[in-house]
């Protein structure tokens, strides 16, 4: 009787809004930690899968579970993460994001040290690569550590839909992210400083479209980007039916009317729209892409191509310097790890992935025994 009274209501397991697949498992984590642990253990039944239970938060007394495969995960990383978790001394933890921020060695850094994931099948595959998972009671999002940039390029559909076209899709995702970050800045740089590189026909069209502009190009670009971010934020928090209404207003008022009356130029709206759409190609990096888009917009607007080149190198050197929990953030591209290229931009068939990715620290490099058939490949 007493047990029945303390039982907390929980929602059923559904497909999460992120990471949807055409083919493949559709289960997602829910807000109950026991269910989430069982969703992972259902996929990894080995006794080597260890769970460490922690209670964090003076008032919330939130249950946190740290999971890893003992015979694969690097013990140094496990100890470091555990130490960091034990050091958290706060009022309460209500979501994994609180933990994520505490685990970031570089507190003011641009990139997260842990990846967020809502699907148990993806978490299971990451555990098998030597990562550590953190589950928090009350949160449907799991954290996996270490996190590298490549995870943003990979997608569940790449693994469940066959190998055809994976390389192309991943390359497109990478190009999409670069377009999202650099396009507005590049457009400003070219239209303000380097008109000679635009073909004459295009230049005439742009000149005609921008001749009655109310604002200077850089101000106009910043305004449109801010407007875009406002619409994005509004759509995110609104009820679904209101969200679609907002989108219609955004499309007709901002896109059509504003450019017709000369408040905003059509090329600027087009550039921001392309950049905005492409930024969703990496859902876990939307915030970072938005910040970088702003920065490159200012750099391109004030310093032209020279500024863009210098800014890009600064970004690359900064990103390359990130080394959270023994995993270089840009691995396996920089440092270049030949073996890991089998599941980087390209993806070879699973039987050929003999070794675990070396980008992620682990102490058991062999993923599967090589058969004669594998050797023939």
């Amino acid at each position: 009787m007493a047990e029945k009274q303390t039982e907390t209501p929980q929602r059923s397991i559904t497909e999460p809004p992120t990471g949807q697949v055409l083919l493949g498992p559709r289960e997602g984590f829910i807000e109950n930690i026991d269910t989430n642990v069982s969703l992972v253990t259902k996929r990894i039944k080995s006794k080597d899968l260890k769970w460490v239970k922690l209670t964090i938060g003076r008032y919330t007394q939130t249950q946190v579970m740290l999971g890893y495969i003992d015979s694969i995960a690097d013990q140094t990383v496990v100890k470091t993460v555990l130490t960091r978790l034990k050091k958290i001394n706060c009022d309460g933890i209500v979501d994994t994001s609180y933990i994520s921020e505490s685990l970031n060695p570089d507190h003011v850094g641009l990139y997260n040290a842990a990846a967020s994931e809502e699907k148990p099948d993806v978490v299971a595959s990451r555990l098998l690569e030597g990562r550590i998972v953190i589950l928090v009671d009350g949160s449907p999002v799991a954290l996996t550590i270490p996190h590298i940039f490549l995870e943003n390029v990979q997608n569940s559909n790449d693994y469940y839909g066959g190998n055809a076209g994976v390389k192309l899709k991943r390359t497109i995702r990478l190009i999409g992210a670069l377009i999202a970050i650099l396009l507005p800045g590049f457009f400003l740089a070219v239209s303000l400083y380097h008109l000679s590189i635009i073909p004459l026909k295009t230049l005439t069209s742009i000149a005609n479209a921008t001749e009655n502009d109310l604002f200077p190009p850089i101000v106009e670009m910043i305004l449109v980007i801010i407007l875009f971010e406002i619409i994005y934020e509004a759509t995110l928090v609104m009820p679904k039916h209101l969200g679609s209404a907002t989108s219609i207003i955004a499309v007709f008022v901002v896109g059509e009317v504003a450019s017709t009356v000369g408040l905003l130029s059509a090329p600027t709206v087009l550039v921001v729209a392309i950049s905005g759409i492409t930024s969703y190609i990496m859902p876990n990096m939307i915030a970072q892409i938005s910040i970088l888009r702003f920065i490159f917009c200012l750099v391109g607007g004030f310093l032209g191509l020279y500024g863009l080149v210098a800014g890009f190198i600064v970004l690359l050197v900064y990103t390359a310097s990130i080394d959270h929990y023994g995993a270089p953030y840009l691995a396996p591209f920089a440092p270049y790890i030949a073996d890991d290229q089998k599941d980087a931009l390209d993806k070879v068939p699973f039987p050929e992935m003999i070794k675990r990715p070396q980008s992620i620290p682990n102490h058991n490099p062999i993923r599967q025994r090589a058969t004669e058939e594998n050797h023939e490949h």
Partner: protein
Amino acid sequence: MNTKRHQNINLRQLCIGYFLYSTSIKVLTLPSALANGAGNWAWLSAILGVIFELVMVAVASLILKFTNNQNHFFRVLCWLVVPVLIFETVLTAIQVFHLAYTDLFTNLGITVFVITLVGLGLFFLTRQPRAMFRAGEILWLFFALGLILAIIPTLYNIQVDWHDLVRGNGARIFTTTVLNLGFFETATFVLAFGSETRKTNRDLVRINLTALLCGIGYIAFMILFVLLFGTLSREQNMGLVDLTTATQFITSSGSLDWLIATSILAALVLRFGTQLVAIVTLIKRGLNQHD
């Protein structure tokens, strides 16, 4: 356990990086500069540069191996090489200025340019060598792409004449001495990125062999370069350099020439950063603070 396996730059990565760095950056920037100074004798000028470079790499290897508390000679040597590196860094900054200010960026005031370059320098100085190395690994691929884009449009009209290799005034190669000092500085690469792990004698031999092979490869490229552009330059009555510099590429709008120019600019900025990192490494070794 491989926690730190890919954190430090190992010998294999260093040698591959050296090859990419020396070929991509030098191939993007140096041929036109040498051709400007020495004309068709640019290939001979490149040989002098390679000899200079091999000596520098040998010195860099010895510095990596022998700078310690007991050995004052190599610590003094560190301080002697520092001015050479500063000179090379200034040369790179001038090249960045020349490309960015005159060709790409005519609307920018020199004060703004200097401020941004100093800002860049300060940023690079705060980074660890491995960060510069990793960024380079990605960018060198772009440089290679830029190089291919630069060469392909000229190939359709190629007429090779071996006599081009000996046409012109051989004495002009001496005018390229300063250029060679400034450009053949891949020894700085060894100094900047070779410090992360202790080097055995075998490692040092391999580094020097890589330098030798890269040098031979570069001389071969310079010979090819003169053969490719020599006839074309005579027929069009243009200097060898006019056919190859970024200025020429940029002025023919409507193509991807700006991409080539941007690649060269990026290569120069990255080299600027590498040289600064090498200077810091040398000073640390001179002060015996490298461990």
